[in-house]
């Protein structure tokens, strides 16, 4: 079907500002992705899954500028011993990065493998993204596959001694960055990937993740404190038998964030947990869009999202559990909750279940409301001032999502950042 005129024009305008990298082992994948973008068109306001989030500033040809935000907090994961890989405004910074050598992992820069004819990542690049386009189109991810020039491809073959930390620094107020990562966890291998930083004025990230049987990946991401930045991140994961994928995202500030996660459970007994905590103030708009497909038997999926909103902030949650007829004994759980600290905020949610297998236990819950006055009064009656009591209850509200992170040190770090956010707003 031909695209609507408006969509066609917008898509062409965006594409006219970009040049397709040519040659190398990824050329074919890039051409196919470009053709996907042309067929689907970039997101428009009338698209079902863009009902609650305006895509305009994410799709317009030239990115809106965003001031670089200066603050005195140390980068969030600095206290942990990690292998650091630094990008500045979406470009790899070799000097600031560690040597990419670590036992049990093979790390390459995307632009380096581009020139090679054969590379293991060729079989994954653009492949998982393309699989994730059905039934809901994700054109910004296809755009990323076609045009992203930088990123890392990580192959985990063992259990490396420390986490890999991808740091996204933002220095130019007009930067428009695209990064594309491919992560392959071999059978039985395990790694933790930490990501932090606002990345750019406008950031489009696409991560393709393939976890083989018995592999495990833990991802924790903090999207920086810049107020004006915009981000559309995409995560496409495919899980093998008995594999584990746990992902947590912390978002504070940012005028626009759209985090999409598309996960397919292809091997029996696999486990996926996707969680997020976000706190927003003022013109903050935060959107979590999650699509989990159960194909294999006896898998577990959990989605836990908590949003604290104040002063006109908007929180969006669109989450789906799709259980195919082959996925008997599925355990699917989803919870999305908003705490609105004042009257101007909004919470818009579409939590979906689509189930074709009968021997399953799936549930979802969504709640929205103000802080519990009864609990507040109880704390006050014990001498805790109202503001402290509000903060305590707000943190308690966020705790369920944060506790999805297995590592207690990281939990403490995240909680500390959330506390600071609350204190700054007293």
């Amino acid at each position, binding site marked *: 079907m031909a695209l609507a005129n408006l969509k066609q024009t917008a898509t062409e305008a965006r594409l006219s500002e970009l040049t397709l990298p040519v040659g190398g082992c990824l050329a074919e994948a890039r051409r196919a992705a470009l053709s996907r973008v042309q067929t689907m068109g970039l997101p428009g306001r009338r698209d079902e899954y863009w009902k609650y989030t305006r895509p305009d500033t994410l799709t317009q040809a030239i990115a809106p500028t965003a001031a670089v935000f200066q603050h005195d907090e140390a980068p969030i994961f600095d206290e942990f011993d990690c292998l650091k890989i630094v990008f500045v405004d979406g470009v790899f910074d070799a000097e600031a990065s560690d040597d990419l050598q670590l036992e049990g992992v093979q790390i390459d820069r995307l632009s380096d493998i581009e020139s090679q004819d054969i590379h293991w990542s060729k079989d994954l690049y653009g492949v998982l993204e393309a699989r994730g386009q059905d039934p809901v189109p994700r054109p910004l991810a296809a755009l990323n596959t076609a045009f992203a020039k930088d990123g890392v491809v990580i192959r985990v073959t063992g259990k490396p001694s420390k986490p890999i930390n991808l740091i996204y620094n933002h220095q130019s107020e007009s930067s428009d960055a695209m990064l594309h990562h491919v992560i392959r966890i071999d059978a039985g291998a395990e790694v933790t990937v930490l990501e932090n930083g606002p990345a750019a004025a406008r950031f489009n990230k696409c991560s393709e993740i393939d976890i083989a049987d018995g592999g495990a990946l833990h991802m924790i991401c903090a999207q920086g404190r810049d107020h004006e930045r915009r981000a559309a991140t995409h995560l496409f994961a495919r899980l093998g038998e008995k594999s584990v994928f746990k992902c947590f995202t912390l978002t504070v500030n940012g005028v626009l964030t759209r985090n999409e996660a598309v996960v397919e459970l292809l091997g029996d007994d696999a486990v996926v947990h996707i969680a997020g905590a976000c706190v927003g103030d003022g013109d903050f708009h935060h959107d979590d869009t999650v699509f989990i497909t159960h194909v294999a038997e006896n898998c577990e999926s959990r989605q836990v999202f908590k949003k604290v909103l104040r002063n006109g902030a908007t929180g969006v949650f669109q989450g789906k559990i799709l259980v195919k007829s082959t996925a008997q004994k599925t355990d699917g759980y989803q919870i999305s909750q908003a705490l609105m600290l004042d009257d101007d905020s909004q919470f818009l949610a579409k939590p979906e279940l*689509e189930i*074709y297998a009968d021997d399953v236990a799936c549930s979802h819950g969504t709640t929205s409301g103000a802080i519990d006055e009864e609990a507040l009064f109880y704390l006050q009656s014990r001498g805790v001032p109202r503001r402290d009591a509000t903060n305590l209850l707000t943190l308690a509200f966020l705790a369920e999502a944060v506790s999805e992170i297995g590592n207690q040190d990281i939990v403490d770090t995240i909680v500390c950042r959330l506390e600071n956010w609350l204190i700054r707003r007293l």
Partner: protein
Amino acid sequence: MAALDQTQVKEGIDQETVDAVREVGGAYKHGWATDIEMEYAPKGLTTDIVRLISQKNEEPQWMLDWRLQAYDRWLTKEEPSWAMVDYPEIDFQDQYYYARPKSMEVKPKSLDEVDPKLLETYKKLGIPLKEQMILAGVEGAENAPAEGRKVAVDAVFDSVSLGTTFKAELAEAGVIFCSISEAIREHPELVKKYLGTVVPVSDNFYATLNSAVFSDGSFVYVPPGVRCPMELSTYFRINAENTGQFERTLIIADKGSYVSYLEGCTAPARDIAQLHAAVVEIIIEEDAEVKYSTVQNWYPGDENGKGGIYNFVTKRADCRGDRAKIMWTQVETGSAVTWKYPSCILRGDDSQGEFYSIAITNNYQQADTGTKMVHLGKNTKSRIVSKGISAGHAQNTYRGLVSMHPKAKNARNYTQCDSLLIGNKCGAHTVPYIEVKNNSARVEHEATTSKVDDDQLFYCRSRGMDEEAAVALVVNGFCKDVLQALPMEFAMEAQQLVAISLEGSVG
């Protein structure tokens, strides 16, 4: 077996249910057709057909103009495609838009003169004799002695309303209950004031179509402070082949009044799909309360998915006044395709909306049903309880919207959607939209999907029930919250329907 005795069958299943389930046998009970000479308008939809329908109903010019305007709007509209239902394209020009039994042209003097086939139809539908007489239009039937419980019935047979029972008694209380065509003639001021104010002409494709071609339906007006002395009931039946039924219901509960309204539907088994596109509008003024209960048992098609009713219905209640109350209860077991979202506009402060639904799909049935709760006023409350049961190759979707507007301070919503799957070739889906725009509003939504509990089934079977009866019993327990919301007479019928609808779903 001592341990077994302690196992609990789902709460709410009593002996009555068990008996009801046992007693009912056979497939679709209302699947016979009545062989009556019909008068048809030509197939297809043109302005001429719209004019003809208006003329047959002896409508005034303003009504015809309203219809023609709707027809023009309809031509510009597209059929919606967002629902999770899949059916062959409908040729709207291959439908009859008007059909009525020929015998209605001259009023019979006594039951002897009534087409016996029509009477047979009523008898099969279980309508009492006196009501049969009135429905058949027998003169003086109103004075005949009544039998059994009092329920005023308005029956719509294909395109026309056949007559309304207990009219005089209702009139005494000031309640107007008649066919909509009669209301247009007799109470134009009320119809003009309210028609199309809850479901506007251009609301959606099917509602617009209905506005152009509705041939009949029911009209209720309950004056201020009146508690309607009996339950009002409409019976819809599609009989003629290739006929679309487009009835229109308008209910007005004036300040401080109360009415309970029951709607039942049946259609004969035919292997060609038939179209049904109804509109129900309810206006509820200050302190008034309306209960609207539906048992929808249109022909669902055969076990291979052939035939059945395509049911595209727009139902909406507008709680205009403060403290107005609406309660929708529906048991949807029929139709090949169901597309239906009885909604509540909670405009008045402290107004309340409730939606209780059971949707059962078996074989190749598809249902996409749910509700909209639009909270506009302060302290408005809504409650949604939806139970979806899917068996065979059926697809069952709950689709709903809860919207809390910025001015709906302290509004509350609680939603519980549960789905049950029987067999692994069917689907159960939940698509809620939740939009909260003020922080004093509290929304809670919960949904679960699971299969029929094996322990419960085993318990029933160990007491001698076969698997089908056991499933029906357990499913009735699963639906208890909704069945309880139905008026007594309907609840029994609904329990039986649950059992019939699931026939052939196990083993």
